[in-house]
């Protein structure tokens, strides 16, 4: 049990550091065991140091910074033990245009092996999709239509 946990932890930690560094343009992040001798008697803490800043308490970080750290952790787990599909609903709500673009790019890269179903209100993220499912409703009844890009609709 200990070795299974440590293998997972070490891999996810390595992925997390590398992914966060990429999305934050050389910022740093880490996962640490609160109790190194006995991991199960402590938790796993998260440290985040955005580019040019000090290490911060996660609670003090901005909404966008928290989203980037959270997405990095999800992708770190995904690179270690992927699920066959991912469903993300408006994860870009608090991202600025540049970070939403970066996220779209990252999902696109990973989507050759894994299915990503992503609900978004942001055009620049939707532009990375392979196809778009447009959902509309009339008199309270929803229906869908499929198209390749937003340019087809506007």
């Amino acid at each position, binding site marked *: 049990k200990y070795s299974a946990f440590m293998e997972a932890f070490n891999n996810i930690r390595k992925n997390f550091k590398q992914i966060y560094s990429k999305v934050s343009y050389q910022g740093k992040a880490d996962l640490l065991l609160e109790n190194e001798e006995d991991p199960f008697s*402590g938790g796993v803490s998260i440290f985040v140091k955005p580019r040019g800043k000090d290490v911060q308490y996660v609670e003090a970080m901005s909404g966008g910074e928290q989203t980037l750290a959270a997405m990095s952790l999800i992708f770190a787990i995904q690179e270690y033990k992927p*699920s*066959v*599909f991912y469903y993300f*609903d408006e994860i870009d709500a608090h991202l600025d245009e540049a970070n939403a673009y970066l996220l779209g790019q990252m999902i696109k890269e990973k989507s050759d092996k894994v299915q990503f179903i*992503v*609900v978004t209100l942001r055009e620049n993220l939707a532009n990375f999709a*392979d196809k*778009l499912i447009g*959902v509309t409703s009339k008199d309270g009844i929803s229906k869908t239509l499929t198209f390749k890009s937003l340019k087809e609709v506007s």
Partner: protein
Amino acid sequence: AYIEKIVVTNFKSYGTEKLEIPLGEGFIGIVGPNGAGKSNIGDAISFGLGLSTSKTMRAKNLTHLIYSKQGHREDFAQVDIYFAKPQIFGYDEFVITRIIYKDGKSLYKLNGKIIREKDLHLILAKGGIYKEGYNIVLQGDIVKFVKITPTERRKIIEDVA
């Protein structure tokens, strides 16, 4: 493997006609106006695979997932989830069905044959799909991953291990 399409009947805002929602390989974007029914697609996936509670699907209880109009609720709701290239699950065809009846009863089928939820979950685990897993991030939930306690975060890693 990937979800090729979802077929919904009387599910949430998707009305009483059997409706096919196409998904497919790669990066699928779901777009449309507020209140259109986008998040309800995520709820259909969560419901169909038994991955969440009625609360996370924004329903007071499972029967609230059944399409209702002007106080009249249909007798049942059904979701069929079609996976393409499902060999990772040990199958050549892989269609998960779940039905919820107005009286609250619910059942699952795999390729048309009744299956118990926990047996379904053992099979889904082969595709990295778990109840309370990390592949489904609902609207407003993204920041939870950094706001959970260190102990909860350790448990997430234990689950993955």
